[in-house]
């Protein structure tokens, strides 16, 4: 099972990132657990630019602009 983390203190972009990850997982039809990380210390382990996307402990995307839905799918697939 894939461990997906969405990093962000809870702004609009971070919510969008979470939705993108959920949609990508659904479309790919893979088994994944999506976790929202808003705790600063935990976010900083990966990056200082939110929103971030972490798959299996690997930072796949960080900061603005957000990736496109296609890109998110590709990023998750790389680790699947």
């Amino acid at each position, binding site marked *: 099972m894939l461990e997906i983390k969405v990093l962000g*203190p809870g*702004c609009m972009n971070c919510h969008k990132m979470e939705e993108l990850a959920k949609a990508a997982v659904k479309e790919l039809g893979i088994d994944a657990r999506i976790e929202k990380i808003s705790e600063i210390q935990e976010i900083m382990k990966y990056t200082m630019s939110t929103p971030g996307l972490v798959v299996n402990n690997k930072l796949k995307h960080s*900061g603005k602009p957000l*990736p496109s839905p296609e890109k998110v799918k590709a990023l998750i697939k790389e680790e699947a």
Partner: protein
Amino acid sequence: MLKAFSAYITYNLFGLAEGSRIAGALDFFIYDTIKIFLLLSSIIFVISVIRSYFPPEKTKRILSHKKIFIGNILAALLGVVTPFCSCSAVPLFIGFVEAGVPLGVTFSFLISSPMVNEVAVVLLWGLFGWKIAAVYIGTGLLVAIFAGLVIGKLKLEKWIEDYVFKIHSGGGQETAAPAFRERLEAARWNTVDILKKVWLFIIIAIAIGGFIHGYVPEDFLVHYAGKENPFAVPLAVAIGVPLYSNAAGVIPIVYALVEKGMSMGTVLAFMMAVTALSLPEMIILRKVLKVELLAVFVGIMTVTIIAVGYLFNAIL
């Protein structure tokens, strides 16, 4: 060509009488809408590609242990090209502190980044011409450098929240640099995304602007917001601070107000207040700054922006 097109629609397609108020308003609306959207999409695209080369991690490395002054200038410039979501102000601030970026230098970055913002600059360019947009960028950079220098000189590190110094991230991870094609693709996506967010605000604002253009008398605002009124600048700044996410919508209205007598310095000060100081950003920054430092920051920015407003009212 655009002018001819909007005139054609107004006078031929809608058959409105030349010189009538409704015709003036419609002509203004069509012309400005097309012009602004053309400018917005092309400039956001170009800026997005440029920004993909300046991730915050790179900026952090460049600014780390930089000398005051040179550091402030670099930080203000990098603020323009480094993409950053205001929600990441906290991790970014902590990351900068951890990497040894001086406090004043960090502030120069945090000020210039939202202030010299592409949507604001494009709207100024589209509505007031490139000279005003250039003046805005130049002054924005100067304000960021100056305010950062002052905050650095005041040695206010004691007013950073204590936990900030206790976080050791070890620098985190970095993603692989994308290929050029991917940068173009990401920029295209980002441009569409931003336009989706702002188009309605801009159209409504241009419509209101068109209405003011057609129906409000020429010198309506001279008395209230012209150069002669010394309170116009502070008042514009006071109104501008709480307006944040609607910068895109505010500006076309301001444009119409300028036509009715609001002076340029007041407009620039207003724009800076809208973009640089906002309540949501203060709430975010409060997580890393003690109230005292936040107050000093807001104070310095307010005074500097008001000074800029008076300066431009005197010389423009």
